């Protein structure tokens, strides 16, 4: 894996890799649509869609956060060019996740939604995580990077907070069997740990 990443793709290869990743990120959506047409979204389709979109948002977020550790381990930077695309895909699935919650789950009943958010810590942290992704998505264009200059980077470091909130959100959903959220927490600790280790070394 590491030696593979050490190879530096040329421009044509890079655009192929990007296209492939883009296509891969579409599959979870296609799968949901396909299962929906087949009426195969389990006995509780709303929960299934919520879980699925939440899972993919978190997974893509972790993938985004793995690009810098790859740079630190391989001293290659080409993969960083996929950061924005992955980040936006994360935003897409997180947005779907929230939309399904607001619409299919709660029918845009704002009173019930605000009660649900206020009374349930897991919803509160999840909602906070999503709200924080919005400015990042808005400022993801090259024009915004130029406009914000040195303020862009600290703003986008919010992604670490988002990731921690997202893992906590999943953790608190689970009644008893914490193996799955624990594995995401473990991956996140490693991804953030590599960064901290690198900082400490400098």
């Amino acid at each position, binding site marked *: 894996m590491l030696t593979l990443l050490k190879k530096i793709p040329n421009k044509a290869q890079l655009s192929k890799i990007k296209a492939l990743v883009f296509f891969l990120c579409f599959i979870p959506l296609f799968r949901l649509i396909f299962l929906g047409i087949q009426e195969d979204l389990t006995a509780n389709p709303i929960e299934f869609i919520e879980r699925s979109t939440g899972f993919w948002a978190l997974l893509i977020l972790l993938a985004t956060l793995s690009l810098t550790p790859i740079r630190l381990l391989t001293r290659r930077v080409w993969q960083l060019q996929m950061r924005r695309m992955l980040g936006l895909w994360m935003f897409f699935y997180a947005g779907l996740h929230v939309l399904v919650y607001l619409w299919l789950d709660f029918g845009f009943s704002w009173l019930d939604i605000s009660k649900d958010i206020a009374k349930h810590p897991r919803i509160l942290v999840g909602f906070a995580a999503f709200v924080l992704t919005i400015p990042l998505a808005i400022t993801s264009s090259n024009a915004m990077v130029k406009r914000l200059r040195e303020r862009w980077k600290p703003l986008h470091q919010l992604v670490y907070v988002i990731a921690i909130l997202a893992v906590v959100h999943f953790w608190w959903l689970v009644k008893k069997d914490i*193996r799955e959220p624990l594995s995401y927490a473990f991956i996140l600790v490693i991804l953030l740990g590599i960064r901290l280790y690198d900082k400490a070394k400098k």
Partner: protein
Amino acid sequence: MIIQKQSDIIPSEITPKEVFENKRAFLQKAGFGLLAGSATLLSHSLHAATLNITNLENATKPARAPSLIKANALGSRQKILNFTKTTYGADEKLTSYDDITTYNNYYEFGTDKSEPAIHSKLFKPHPWTISVEGEVKKNKTINLDDLIKLMPLEERIYRMRCVEGWSMVIPWVGFPLAQLVKWAEPTGNAKYIELISLVDKQQMPGANLPILDWPYTEGLRMDEAMNPLTLMAVGLYGEHLPNQNGAPIRLVVPWKYGFKGAKAIVKIRFTEKMPLTSWMKAGPNEYGFYANVNPQVEHPRWTQSSEKRIGAGLFAGRIKTQMFNGYAEQVGQMYAGMDLRKNF
């Protein structure tokens, strides 16, 4: 209700439904697995997929595993011959058999709700004995077939509300727990009844994980146990209980959250003190002894004021949760004067 037509195909010629569904579940999981990127994240679903392959192979090769023939025969749908219909829930729209039997919280067979239907296929609910102990005149053990002969079976359609905020309408077949209590002859000291599920690590893969304090234990106050609504179910949709729904015998308490309904019950103990249930041990601030459905008492994770009805469709929205799940008239007086916020 399901109306089954007599068929001239002998049962052994038909691909068992569970085998067919297994294959579909496996293909789904495998497809899902291809998408996931990280090996760590995958291990769980791959494990599940492997188990499915094993089940599939076992189920399609009965000749090499004679003991499985019986398990499969029992796992297939069998009608209950003698039961009377009642008016309970006659106006309710039933949740489909498929939804009731593929969406289960039964941690002994896995914590994902799709897992019990898959992992309980080889579970043997027959023969079965139930023992009665504690504050009783005499400890007793009885074979389930003999017990059922003593108890006239009836069908009752009950709403079931899960603490996770979803609900179903299920046509159970069973007998009132009160009849079993009378048969058990508790002493005057018996204030509570403890219902204990089977824990068999061989047959129940989930029981190998320390997720709950096994065996699964539930309890009722004596008056709750004697309430005419409290049912010991041995079937649903006029057929023997599927394994994933708690075969061969389970508790159904329709005005309480679903987790009160202990499955695969092997032991009933009468006690003077309030028993500590598995969920009370697992999360004392979340799951109380009473666990009455109550839209006014919030849960730290899930909204309790409304619920999603399984099978209602993507756009059906939520329905209001009713006090005592709509059974307040029959059970409300048992809790008169109690602070239900404290006794949640």
